[in-house]
């Protein structure tokens, strides 16, 4: 199994995760979607120096991971490629913002370091919440929920096809990479001189396949409506989850939980 096939396998595992039957999985996709959006907005809204205020926001995803039966390590494993990019956000803050903000013993910690950590954590928390949504909701149900929330059909179709085409593109990449290595034994990776044509070919081949795949959807009655998605009516438990989760997130956002907990131990 080459790297690309492994990637495909991992993509399919996301579908397996989404098909499980925990209480979180069984919730209406719109409830989970709106709750996730609320979480992301509230997480992002923290001030860049409010590191201690931000920390309790971790409770939300951790609790939901427990309830959905999805191990947190699966999240970090699946996101291992994106996480470093998120972590890189704010990497330059310590160079631009050098004013000391707090003193840890003899070490003065600058505002840049704090804002860098805050940005990193915001990114990680938002990724965890997004992962949780994807891992507990099949993509088609998610798209159906978006349509029910009156998101334009074109945008929703784009989202669905992007998800589907990641697999198509990865398959093409796997075939092309194998073909390249069979004719370039001993080479590590793909030579820089071949990058242009390789990417061009990949794009063209993926487009061809994507067009055929879309045609196959159209020929079987797909028209921006997700009748086939297994989505049931919005019920009371969905409303309770949505209201309850947003309430908890608001409390975590506006009540200084960390400070209150700290005051129990430090006078």
């Amino acid at each position, binding site marked *: 199994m080459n790297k690309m096939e492994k990637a495909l396998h991992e993509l*399919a595992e996301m579908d397996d995760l989404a098909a499980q039957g925990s209480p979180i999985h069984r919730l209406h996709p719109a409830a989970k979607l709106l709750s996730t959006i609320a979480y992301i907005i509230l997480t992002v809204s923290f001030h860049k120096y409010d590191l201690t205020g931000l920390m309790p926001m971790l409770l939300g995803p951790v609790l939901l991971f427990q309830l959905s039966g999805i191990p947190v390590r699966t999240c970090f494993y699946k996101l291992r490629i994106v996480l470093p990019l998120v972590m890189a956000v704010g990497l330059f803050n310590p160079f631009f913002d050098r004013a000391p903000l707090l003193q840890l013993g003899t070490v003065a910690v600058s505002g840049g370091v704090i804002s860098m950590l805050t940005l990193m954590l915001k990114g990680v928390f938002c990724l965890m919440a997004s992962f949780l949504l994807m891992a507990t909701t099949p993509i088609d149900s998610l798209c159906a929920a978006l349509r029910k929330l009156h998101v334009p059909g074109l945008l929703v179709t784009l989202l669905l096809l992007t998800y589907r085409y990641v697999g198509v593109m990865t398959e093409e990449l796997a075939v092309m990479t194998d073909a390249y290595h069979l004719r370039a034994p001993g080479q590590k990776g793909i030579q820089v001189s071949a990058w242009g044509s390789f990417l061009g070919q990949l794009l063209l081949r993926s487009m061809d396949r994507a067009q055929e795949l879309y045609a196959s*959807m*159209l020929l*079987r*009655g797909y028209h921006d409506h997700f*009748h*086939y998605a297994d989505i049931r009516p919005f019920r009371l438990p969905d409303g309770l989850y949505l209201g309850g989760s947003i309430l908890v997130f608001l409390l975590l956002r506006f009540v200084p939980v960390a400070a209150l907990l700290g005051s129990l131990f430090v006078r």
Partner: protein
Amino acid sequence: MIEFQHVNFAYEKDRPVIRDLSFRIESGESVGLIGANGAGKSTVMKLLLGLLPCEGQILVDDTPVTKETLKTIRRKLGFVLQNSDNQMFMPTVYEDMIFAPLNYMVSREEAEKRVDAVLARLGLTELKYRHNHKISGGEKRMAAIATILAMEPEAILMDEPTSALDPYNRRVVINTIRELSQTKIITSHDLDMILDTCDRVLLLSEGQIVADGPAGEILRDQALLESHRMELPLSLSRRE
């Protein structure tokens, strides 16, 4: 009933792929569309399905294929693509099979019954919850046919249904096609399969029909086939 009336089509200007094409296929017929590479076989399928715009008129049950009628027309036609990977885009065989009936507003209960019935009929019940990317090429081809049968179309169009299959799976697909009662239009280079499954053959060359007649007659005409870059089916050439 499917009818092409003076249909013309070109992917690029001045390079026509289909030229003044006219033919008629009655309900229940099994028609093999044969021809060398680039003869226009797949293009004919795409035109019929309204995937490409054309000059002239294409009729399905007397309804012209237009933007407005596409939904009705496509409901009647099931298309099995050459590459099953492009056909099977849902995570599992079951989800792929239920996709079309639900899109056509069949109730979930009824759609599930259809899926189970088709799987049982094709002997594929054990594939139901398998992941599409984990099944073999032969199983995938059969599953692709199953997804179309679950639609309950009036006519089935197949593009190279036996390509890249081993002899056993090829035979399974041929037997399955033979048992289908719907109108069938099959494009293929596998002339033995066409001989086995079709009553009538249309020989396409440079976008035109150069022969139209009983499969047994056209596929035995060595001179005709060779003049259009084809050969006798292996089963016939061995005998002669």
